[in-house]
């Protein structure tokens, strides 16, 4: 059984004037010991999906569909049941560590409280364990009494990793863990994270817009666009470099926007989640669009083994008529 199985998830936010359709018909599963990358541009709904799994969304949200964690639907859980899962079964690293640590509590305490909350440890035990964890994430335990503002960005991210992994959850959701870090720090953090989760047999949902990182450590990659997953498959299948390959035109464009593959910008703008385009959501920006792309909304199709694409023409035999 998959660890997490998301089926037909719709996450919509209702405000006075409009409805923000942040996630639409999302299907995604994460297996045990698997690292799944969720990639896409800023504002495509990646973060919302990660937070939906933890039920950490604002009260004006409407959630439809199901998020099964080991067979239990997270959306049906009571407040107490979801609290028992948060941090214990599913850990989370929120984006922007500068704002995600409490400025008035010592960093050691912010890690130790996870042990006290979930494992019933005493104050001394929790502190001892936090000490060990600080060593593992590469922070001198002598700094546990310090406050977040005394830490650099990379060090704060290490604290966030320690918080996320403290209770050894089965799944870690990491939202943009490398945002704002320089290249060297970025790879340090990624190596550290992947080492730690492999060692502990933790699965990970890696939310990022950095394709290089996703390619380096993910088993599978899901590409998100305008609140939809438009492609999902093994990393190697997604990261094909040739134009007009079997990958979705959007994923293809993302790959070719990378500096090392030509740095070709994607034309047009990201659509607003409150007024989505008709038909294929990507058609206004797609270099390969055809007439019916603006009318017919494509469904996910399996074009290779375990490789699904949401495009009317990819993988169809008459692709280039």
């Amino acid at each position, binding site marked *: 059984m998959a660890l997490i199985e998301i089926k037909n998830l719709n996450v919509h936010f209702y405000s006075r004037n409009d409805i923000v359709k942040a996630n639409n018909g999302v299907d995604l599963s994460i297996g045990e010991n698997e690292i799944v990358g969720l990639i896409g541009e800023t504002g495509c709904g990646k973060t919302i999906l990660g*937070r939906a799994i*933890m039920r*950490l969304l604002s009260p004006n949200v409407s959630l439809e569909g199901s998020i099964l964690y080991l067979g239990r639907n997270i959306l049906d859980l009571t*407040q107490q049941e979801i*609290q*028992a*899962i*948060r*941090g*214990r079964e599913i*850990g*989370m690293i*929120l984006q*922007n560590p500068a*704002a*995600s*640590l*409490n*400025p*008035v*509590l010592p960093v050691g305490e*912010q890690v130790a*409280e*996870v042990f006290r*909350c*979930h494992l019933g440890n005493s104050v001394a035990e929790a502190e001892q364990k936090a000490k060990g964890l600080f060593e593992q994430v590469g922070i001198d335990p002598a700094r546990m009494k310090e*406050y977040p*503002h*005394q830490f650099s960005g990379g060090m704060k991210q290490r604290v*966030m990793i320690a*918080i996320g992994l403290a209770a050894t959850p089965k799944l870690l959701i990491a939202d943009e863990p490398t945002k704002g870090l320089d290249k060297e720090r970025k790879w340090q953090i990624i190596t550290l994270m992947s080492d730690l989760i492999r060692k502990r047999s933790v699965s990970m949902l890696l939310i990022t817009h950095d394709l290089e990182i996703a390619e380096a450590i993910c088993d599978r990659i899901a590409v998100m666009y305008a609140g939809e997953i438009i492609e999902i498959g093994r990393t190697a299948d997604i990261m094909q470099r040739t134009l007009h390959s079997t990958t979705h035109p959007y994923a293809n464009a993302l790959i070719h926007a990378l500096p090392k593959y030509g740095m070709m910008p994607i034309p047009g703008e990201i659509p607003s989640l409150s007024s989505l385009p008709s038909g294929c959501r990507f058609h206004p920006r797609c270099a390969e669009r055809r007439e019916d792309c603006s009318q017919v909304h494509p469904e996910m199709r399996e074009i290779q083994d375990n490789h699904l694409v949401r495009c009317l023409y990819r993988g169809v035999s008459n692709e280039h008529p």
Partner: protein
Amino acid sequence: MYAYIVKRLALVFLVMSGVTVITFGAMYLAPGDPAEIIATARYGQDLTPGQIEWVRSTEHLDDPVYIQYLTWLNHIIRLDLGRSLITFDDVAEEIAVRFPTTLTLALASLILSLCIGIPVGIISALHKNAFLDYTTTSIALLGVSMPNFWLGLILIWFFSLYLRVLPSFGSGGISHLILPAVTLGASMAAITMRLMRSSMLDVMGQEYIATARAKGLDKRTVLFRHALKNALLPVITFSGLQLGFLLGGTVIVETIFAWPGIGKLLVDSIYARDYSMIQGCVLLIGLLFAITNLAIDLLYASIDPRIRYDRHD
């Protein structure tokens, strides 16, 4: 932290120096000849030039100004504030009698406003835009809108004249304290509540609260361990300023309830042109402001580590 305290204390010293200069200078900025003013206060309107000159020499008013200032400062430091020009009472003694009364009223109304404002503000924030929120917000608006003198009179009418359960004036036991404290505390409680509500809402929307929730902490822990400390900071600032004002005496409320505090003393002294008493009161009020602000700064630093460490100490 140690360096921070020293720095703050140095600032208090600086402020107090300024206060003494201004207080002393005020005597000279007042229209008329100080010697004549003092003589008028003592001997009435029909003065002979001899009386004025006698005052001038006995009070050393013919010395250079800076000598006068230093002499005066020397007395002040030894808590000798001189004698009232009108009653010849010792100013320091008079203030020492009045101040505890003001302090009692100030603390009572502050505690009252915090005990109401903070919990109601939190509840209101947690039920944002729900019935409870609208109700408390409406009551708060009412509290802010009611002027002190009006609320004081209404309370006197209801509790003293109609129900006859509480005394309407004077100071004494707890029963005397209730009406003035409620009068002063009501609007403060309303402002504290609104401040607490908006600050709490702001903090609850912060990412570190999402982190706390993502850890699986229960609502109580998220609220009291992670949100409250951060949310209290603006409330502390406001309450500190309020306390500074309250300690300086609240003229209107002290007058309505005939509460023998500093505010009433100051106003009476101003009417009587009792300069030495005015000086004493102003000095005390300045000192209290400086001390309250010092206390607030230290409290702030004890809560927020960024203030404690950030100054390259």
